[in-house]
């Protein structure tokens, strides 16, 4: 595998940084080389922010932010149209959006004719599994359907490792359920 670069778009407080890290750490468990880092600006809850994950079979030396991502994940649907989420996305690029719309509609909204577009209603899944709108974990599940960077089991192990102590078994399982649901519900065009 050549290096895969993922760019996450979210708003401060929606867990884009956490998602980028979980993906990286799950890949690290499978002996990949990884980088996961947010773009630090003036942090404010609600402000648009980016985070990045790099995964590679070989040592990663590059230390700048990602300009030509292989995958873009948009955690907040209101960012579509307000910032250029497809910037730098190549012909084979994939964009995954948290929305109740179909991939075809999002394609139109984004005016994106290349690559693949995937959608999943991660906010709804999060509300139904966790009871709060925290779409980052379902987005991770959906991402793994779009590109199996790690398996659902590998990701779940990482989530357990990070969450069990912090939020308890019930909420951890709810997060994993959200991941699995998004994995099966994501639509791809």
């Amino acid at each position, binding site marked *: 595998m050549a290096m895969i670069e993922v760019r996450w778009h979210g708003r401060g407080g929606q867990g884009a940084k956490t998602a980028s890290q979980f993906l990286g*750490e799950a890949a690290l468990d499978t002996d990949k080389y*990884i980088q*996961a*880092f*947010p773009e630090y600006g003036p942090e404010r809850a609600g402000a648009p922010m980016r985070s990045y994950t790099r995964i590679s079979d070989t040592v990663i*030396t*590059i*230390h*700048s932010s990602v300009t030509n991502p292989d995958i873009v994940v948009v955690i907040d649907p209101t960012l579509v149209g307000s910032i250029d989420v497809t910037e730098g996305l190549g012909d084979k690029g994939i964009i995954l959006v948290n929305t109740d719309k179909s991939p075809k509609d999002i394609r139109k909204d984004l005016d994106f004719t290349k690559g693949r577009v995937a959608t999943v209603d991660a906010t709804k899944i999060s509300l139904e599994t966790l009871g709060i709108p925290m779409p980052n974990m379902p987005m991770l599940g959906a991402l793994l359907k779009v590109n199996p960077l790690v398996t659902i089991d590998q990701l779940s192990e990482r989530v357990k490792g990070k969450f069990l102590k912090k939020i308890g078994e019930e909420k951890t399982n709810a997060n994993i359920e959200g991941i699995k649901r998004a994995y099966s519900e994501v639509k791809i065009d």
Partner: protein
Amino acid sequence: MTKKNLIPFTGDQAVAYAMKQIDPDVVAAYPITPQTEIVMNFSNYVANGQVSTEMIPVESEHSAMSACVGAAAAGARTMTATSANGLALMWEIVYIAASTRLPIVMPVVNRALSGPINIHCDHSDTMGCRDSGWIHIYCENAQEVYENTILAIRIAEHKKILLPVMVCQDGFITSHAVEGLELFDDKKVKDFIGEYKIENPLLDVDHPVTYGPLDLQDYYFEHKRQQGEAMKAALTAIPEVLKKFEKTFGRKYDFIETYKLDDAEIAIVAMSSTAGTVKFVVDELRQKGVKAGLLRPRIFRPFPKEKLITALKNVKAVAVLDRSESFSAEGGPLYTDIKAALYDSGIRPLISNYIYGLGGRDIFPADINKVYVDLQDILKTGKVKTPLNYLGSRE
């Protein structure tokens, strides 16, 4: 495939973990972005009883370094950590630590100095105190940050050196990015750093000594001379420590790192995380047949003149990247130092300077590529049109 068993750590976590394994006698520190997670994580180790360190939460960095000086003089293995304005507030005592010859180790998370106020990476903080008498180590990634923090203990405490050491990493870029780290066994770290024994500790009440007396025209100069000689001695003593490090941990380091430099016609000199991005660009250029290379100074003070000259001896055009502006109107500190080193050697590549990345301005492969394009042009024309350039600044 053997399991690599890499641990996800940020650069700050890497420092805190190294400090946990070192288990210093005293840590006096004040949190400041982007160093905060070092103090936070290490405080957790203290609170959890995982270290035996006496942690002194102070009210300012001036106090932090003052407490470190006192502790180190008393005979304690002492550490602190800071960034930018915190380092600036320590300034007075930073010099005192070096001139009192106290082997304090201080991880510094490089951040732009105010003003205007900015929390992101550049090297203006540590470059500003390059004349303070501290040894300066610059790290490319979190793995190096971890290893150099451990290495620094032995360098600082080496009998022929006895100087404090700064271990520098790039703010946010390294300090807040998660990477996979290979961690050393606790016991190996303990064996490597050994026991801390200082000559003439203040707390040896049977042999009372005085630290920090007034030192005027008759002896001050001799004490400064000793500092200069210690820095020179470090050039020969550090390799001993590096050899021991290699023997213990299997990691081979030198004052400098070269990347595809042996047959390079054009080369960039860069430090810290940017050097990693340069490697990425060198690989791309090599695939196109461009003979590009990289030279990365890892240890900046003492300045490894001979190593740098040897590394650059066959390169025809060199660009030095400085992540700080020294406002000399003559270029950044790394550039002017390298030019000075080349003067006597008779090795005179066409050389130019690029100030970049101030206040955390990202440096992309495209920026570095532009420098190599400039170098190819310089190689062709045999002329450096603009010796001093500002890479990534809007014109």
